[in-house]
């Protein structure tokens, strides 16, 4: 767009109320309008570019996985044991192992994380101690997963003598997801208006009853979103289960939390780095199943949130 001050103005430009300077042919208000429009279109272009740059790699990865991996998908691939040192057969134990690991991590991280979030939001108040705890939790969320893995190895595998097992691996994943579950629970609770709590307290309703009947039900969508996003993170991480629970090649299904098991993320790593001469489609297929599992969890989260939002009460 031409923005030279003496250039003809756009036909649809709104004439500014006449002021002193309008007499010399150039209306400064109109020129200013041109500048603003140009800024506006530049801004939306920049924002669109940024959005595309964020979206394209994600779509590219997914597209590549589908194109290369889809041919490998079959009933046999999903529901049978691997054969001949993983070069043939299916990936059932890895799928089942991932579900076990995620299940154990949830059983640990959800109660602990949600209750801690409730405490921090509703009981701790504003003290020096609670600020320190907050800071510690936020920092814990930033700890690389390999460090969690080493912690899990030291604490669960060796100190508690769980050995390399689903229990140790699941707990390690649980510890890794805990900080985000705590933080998102706290944020969800704090988004419930304070006026609801005040109204309830003023009725002589106890703090816990207020939390149980007024605050928690209304924070539920936010809490669930946080949890389920962490589920998909737990399903996808390789490092935490590397030393603690996942087996490289174990073509049997786990029979208890003390068994070792395979895991999808670990299996992708193993296929890509350790098995020469494997058809590409098997590697891509396994990765596709892993992404599919994560997407499944996420779409469950989105559906649940949608359902709860529709029943939002204020």
């Amino acid at each position, binding site marked *: 767009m031409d923005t030279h001050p003496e250039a003809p103005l756009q036909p649809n430009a709104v004439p500014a109320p006449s002021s002193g300077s309008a007499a010399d042919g150039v209306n400064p208000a109109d020129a200013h309008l041109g500048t603003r429009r140009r800024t506006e279109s530049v801004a939306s272009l920049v924002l669109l570019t940024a959005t595309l740059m964020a979206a394209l790699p994600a779509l590219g990865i997914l597209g590549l996985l589908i194109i290369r991996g889809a041919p490998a998908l079959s009933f046999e691939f999903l529901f049978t044991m691997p054969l001949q040192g993983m070069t043939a057969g299916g990936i059932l134990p890895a799928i089942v192992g991932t579900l076990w690991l995620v299940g154990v991590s949830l059983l640990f991280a959800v109660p602990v994380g949600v209750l801690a979030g409730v405490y921090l939001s509703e009981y701790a108040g504003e003290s020096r101690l609670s600020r320190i705890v907050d800071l510690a939790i936020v920092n814990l969320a930033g700890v690389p997963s390999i460090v969690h893995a080493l912690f899990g190895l030291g604490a669960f595998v060796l100190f508690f003598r769980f050995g390399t097992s689903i229990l140790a691996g699941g707990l390690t994943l649980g510890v890794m997801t805990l900080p985000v579950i705590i933080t998102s629970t706290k944020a969800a609770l704090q988004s419930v208006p304070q006026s609801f709590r005040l109204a309830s307290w003023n009725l002589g309703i106890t703090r816990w009853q207020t939390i149980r*009947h007024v605050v928690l039900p209304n924070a539920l969508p936010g809490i669930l979103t946080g949890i389920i996003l962490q589920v998909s993170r737990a399903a996808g991480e390789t490092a935490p289960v590397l030393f603690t629970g996942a087996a490289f090649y174990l073509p049997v299904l786990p029979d208890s939390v003390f068994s070792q098991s395979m895991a999808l993320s670990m299996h992708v790593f193993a296929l890509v780095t350790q098995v020469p001469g494997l058809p590409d489609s098997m590697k891509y297929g396994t990765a596709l199943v892993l992404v599919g599992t994560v997407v499944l969890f996420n779409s469950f989260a989105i559906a649940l949130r949608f359902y709860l939002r529709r029943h939002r009460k204020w």
Partner: protein
Amino acid sequence: MSDAHISVRNLRASHGPKEVLHGLSLSIPRGGIYGIIGPAGSAKTTFLTCLNRTLQLVPRASSVGEVSLNGIPVSNFEINDLRRRVAMVLPLPVGLPMSIYDNVAFAPRMVGMHNKGELDALVERCLTQAALWDEVKDRLDQLGTKLSGGQQQRLTLARALSTEPEVLCLDEFSIAIDPVTTMRIESVLVELKSEMTIVLVTNLLAQARRIADRTAFFLNGNLVEEGPTEELFVAPTDPRTHDYIHGKFG
């Protein structure tokens, strides 16, 4: 006063280091409407929160002095029992995010009342007292938060009545609602005053004059004077009361 329902002696309250109530003494007689007027910042709300000890919910706030209900210091009551006896209606209407019925039945249920018949009767009585029953009786399962502002304030009032309080405090209940609803609630209060003591904090001088039996004038955290409403408005003893009533400040 011998039949004082609430008596306050030398009450001081602070928000952090700043004292906002400076040793206030006051007796509120049993029954009737007790109006409290005064410009913004004269600690009227802080005074109310000392009556049901909601002041302690405010971070860094504290109070000293004696507040008694029926001659018993409020600090001797179990806190939630006190708040059931001394109900509070806050300035902004709050429909809790549950049905209209549950809004009113909430507090009774929390102390163990679950009999459907009793709850039904109580909900109807409280909503009727709050002049809301006729408008909502056919949609009690609708969300309380979806009502209009004026209806929500009457719902708030019905909820406050659900604990069968002996004292009903209202903190500028009309600032967010329309004049028609205000008048309806005022007439509700006039009906209720034979059953309970009503403490009405208001910015509207005309409101205090219309319905309060006695009125107190607060200024900067002190009680300037109090007395029968008509006397206070017609012949105030303190020049500051005279100035405030005649709109010279505040």
